């Protein structure tokens, strides 16, 4: 059976834990998605924007220099950093903005952590001509000022969120409150495979293209499937995007979470590795929480991984032992960031750098005829200030 089921469940995870005001809107969204995903005109329009505007398909690049330096498995990079806007996020926002327009909505709201989803929403909204407002924690605004400015340039309004930890989870809270208030006119565009049903399903369906392309490309280049696929996990959208097409295959799927300053310090964002089951932001999934059920503050040098929850489908795949999860610390991610920049001429997003570190680690232990595909989910231009700061350099 394909999941989620009718209640939006992935075998116990997922569901729709939302205030009553939102319930009819979620039902409306589910019906609209169900209709348009099969609508030929919608599919063609989306395909047009994916190709002509976003720049798909993205290359599956053989990282020869990195592979030779490591001396283990062959490393391929799925270049989602080359998607217009600099990350995989546009795959989802183009799909959802198009859907919002078909539904007759007049305004798009979104939440953002690293700013990549906010930027991708601003891009899609500008391209398709709809008003856009983005909620962002003040802590993240500080960390990602470049993306804040980019959003403004594209005529999106950035609304600072000063509640709680002033990061992604608080931006989600605030966006949900906005949606509760403006439910009739507004489309809430969630950027990851989180939130109440049908969001985890919708976002997955719009991100699946990463895995579909990857499968075709690796077959063309190597005439076989990879041994392992590695992706970083915050909410999990780039991970499910590349994993989904390979769920039935004999391919190891590894999610890499933010180890922050180390899991033992409590300062991390490794929800799959260290979380427990609970309900946050409309869905049951693994969470970082205390024994009473209060959500704890996550931490990562990469704002996009700094979230105390994770997509319910990934929690489910973990429980089924279909994927594994591991964590990489800030320092390790920085090391991988520098290495990839130096040897391949590719400056990765700090989020993706977590996956790079783990890829290198396992590549060393694998044979030369084995293959790893790493999802390079975004480019690192947005992170240069953070990196310079961490390296003690002034720019």
């Amino acid at each position, binding site marked *: 059976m394909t999941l989620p089921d009718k*209640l939006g469940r992935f075998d116990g995870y997922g*569901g*729709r*834990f*939302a*205030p*009553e*005001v*939102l*319930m*009819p*809107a979620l039902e409306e969204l589910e019906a609209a998605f169900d209709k348009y995903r099969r609508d030929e005109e919608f599919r063609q329009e989306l395909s047009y924007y994916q190709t002509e505007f976003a720049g798909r398909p993205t290359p599956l690049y053989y990282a020869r220099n990195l592979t030779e330096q490591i001396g283990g498995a062959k490393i391929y990079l799925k270049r989602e950093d080359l998607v217009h806007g600099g990350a995989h996020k546009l795959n989802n926002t183009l799909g959802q903005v198009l859907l919002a327009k078909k539904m007759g909505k007049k305004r798009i709201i979104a939440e953002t952590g690293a700013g990549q989803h906010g930027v991708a929403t601003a891009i899609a909204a500008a391209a398709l001509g709809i008003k856009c407002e983005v909620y962002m924690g003040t802590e993240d605004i500080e960390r990602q000022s470049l993306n804040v400015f980019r959003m403004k340039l594209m005529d999106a309004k950035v609304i600072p969120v000063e*509640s*709680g930890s002033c990061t992604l*989870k*608080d931006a989600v*809270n605030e966006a*949900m*409150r906005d949606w*509760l*208030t*403006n*439910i*009739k006119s507004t489309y809430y565009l969630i950027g990851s495979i989180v939130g109440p049903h049908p969001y985890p399903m919708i976002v997955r369906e719009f991100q699946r293209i990463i895995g579909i392309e990857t499968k075709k490309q690796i077959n063309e280049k190597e005439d076989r499937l990879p041994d392992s696929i590695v992706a970083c996990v915050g909410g999990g959208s780039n991970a499910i995007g590349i994993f989904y097409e390979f769920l039935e295959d004999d391919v190891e799927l590894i999610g890499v979470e933010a180890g922050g300053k180390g899991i033992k310090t409590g300062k991390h964002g490794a929800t799959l590795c260290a979380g427990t089951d*609970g*309900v*946050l*932001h*409309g869905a049951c999934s693994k*969470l970082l*929480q205390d*024994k*009473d*059920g*209060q*959500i704890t503050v996550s931490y990562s040098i990469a704002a996009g991984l700094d979230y105390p929850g994770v997509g319910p489908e990934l929690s489910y795949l973990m429980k089924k032992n279909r994927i594994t999860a591991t964590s990489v610390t800030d320092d390790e991610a920085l090391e991988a960031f520098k290495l990839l920049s130096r040897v391949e001429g590719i400056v990765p997003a700090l989020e993706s750098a977590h996956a790079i570190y783990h890829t290198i680690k396992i590549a060393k232990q694998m044979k030369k005829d084995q293959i790893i595909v790493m999802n390079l989910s975004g480019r690192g231009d947005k992170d240069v200030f953070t990196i310079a700061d961490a390296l003690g350099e002034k720019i």
Partner: protein
Amino acid sequence: MKIIRIKEKFKELKKRRECALIGFVTAGDPTPDDTVDIVNSMIRGGADLIELGLPFSDPIADGVVIQKASERSLNAGMNPDLFFELAKKIEKVPKVCLTYYNIVLQRGLDKFARDCTESGIDGLIVPDLPVEEATPLLLACNKHDINLIFLVAQTTTEERLQKILEVSRGFLYVVSLLGVTGARKELSGTINPLIRKVKQASDKIPLAVGFGISNPKQVKEVCDAGADGVIVGSAFVKIIEENAGNKEQMLQTLEEFTRRLKQVTKP
């Protein structure tokens, strides 16, 4: 401990042709030591029922006033154990607990419902638990004879309303506006039709209106529209916030404000 029943209270008020004044505060705000005194002031002022918030770190249905109260309370060391201890000390009126689902889930549904009973709480409101997801908690609440109270909104369809009415007990929480909790200058114009719609669908369960109601004029409007109860929250919490440094004045202001609200619920 003896449970004062919501049902009996509404019956008693109906006889007197009064609308119930339901007062909400966040337990533990500004500190757990203040909660019993705060609630007692509201009871002296005439509150008919008390809705006690057990704070959650991420209260998505609440506006900024109750968000801040939740933060103050959690920072002051509030937790579920302490909540039930405080609840036990509140007597004379029916008590309802409001919290978010994850707090109930982590304590265990059965244990949470049992703790409610043991601390004299007769009703439970979980704003992020729609009827589709409520079956496990309903079973636990029914076992321990706790009223699980559901919300209906302007957006609630006829079909959903029927489903909600089937399982609702205690009273039905009618959300007066689209949005989060917090005072509004004007009540939504759609509140009268909404009350009529719900009344038409069922006259078996009392109907209490909340969200945005903050002054005697609005309370009267809601009572006149045919509601059996009116819920005021953020306006009380605001008084607590503004008088956090002067407890005596806080308690006095709360009592007087409650009295002004209660007055207009009488015929």
